[in-house]
């Protein structure tokens, strides 16, 4: 009697927590944001700005970091405006709980090391490790989303793609630069398409 009572209550509480978590991803804007981030970083690669971003001097590393932060900040601003105008009036508004400061610091250091030293400085790429690193990071990001949110199977479908692309890069023997380019564009397009499809379905559901 007591067990079933507990199970029912805790199951409902857990289900509801997952439902809240899922609500942040059901509009597909999470993937659209990631896709945009990848494609814009990819564009920076081939733009004339890159001339000023080569080198391993500390000032250059900071400059690269500022470029990445500007891109992330710009995308976040765009997404917020888009949600304000299109999503919140139909689906309702909710803000995430504040992040743990320690986690934010660790994430900031990882982003600094990864983007600052690797992604935007092609001369720094001495091996194909960076594509695998990127693949693993993305894999864990999507698996974590799947575990926390419960149902959205699309995260399980998306999670192995970065690893597959990294594996294909390795098997094809692409140069690290080409491999990273391929990874960024394939992931960018995949996330963007996935996000748009989810968003269209979400809008239909709410209409």
């Amino acid at each position, binding site marked *: 009697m007591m067990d079933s009572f*507990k199970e029912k*209550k805790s199951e*409902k*509480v857990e289900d509801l927590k997952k439902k*809240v978590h899922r*609500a942040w991803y059901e509009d597909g804007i999470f993937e659209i944001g990631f896709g945009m981030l990848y494609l814009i970083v990819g564009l920076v690669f081939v733009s004339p700005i890159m001339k000023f971003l080569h080198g391993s001097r500390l000032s250059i590393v900071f400059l690269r970091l500022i470029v990445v932060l500007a891109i992330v900040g710009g995308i976040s601003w765009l997404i917020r405006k888009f949600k304000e105008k299109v999503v919140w*009036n139909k*689906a*309702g508004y909710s803000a995430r709980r504040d992040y743990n400061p320690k986690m934010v610091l660790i994430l900031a250091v990882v982003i600094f090391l990864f983007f600052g030293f690797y992604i935007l400085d092609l001369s720094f790429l001495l091996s194909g490790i960076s594509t695998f690193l990127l693949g693993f990071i993305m894999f864990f990001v999507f698996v974590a989303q799947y575990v926390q949110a419960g149902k959205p199977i699309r995260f399980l479908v998306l999670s192995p793609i970065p690893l597959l692309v990294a594996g294909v890069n390795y098997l094809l023997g692409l140069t690290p630069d080409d491999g990273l380019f391929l990874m960024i564009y394939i992931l960018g397009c995949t996330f963007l398409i996935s996000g748009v499809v989810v968003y269209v379905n979400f809008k239909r559901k709410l209409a």
Partner: protein
Amino acid sequence: MKDKKIIKEIVSLEKLVHEPSRLAILTILSGVKEADFKFLLRISGFTRGNLSVHLSKLEEAGYVNVSKRFINKIPNTVYNLTKEGRKAFNGYLKNMEKIVKWGK
């Protein structure tokens, strides 16, 4: 002695939180920094009237904070858990766990 303690805990289970609808609202709000009425309505699946009544009770108890603002010139009512609300919710879950362990 232990039984007495457990019975005390059962009695002390807060009725305000124990009610399933309010427990659902508190669970949703415990997972967010803040949320508006429409979001709570969508996630909980309650009717407007039902949600409104339970939110008022939680607000009266000081467990939920209400603020009003405008988004694109449209009025928007935002709710968030107060410190007392979070404490009551977490305390309730802890007590439930204890009681269930005792029941086993």
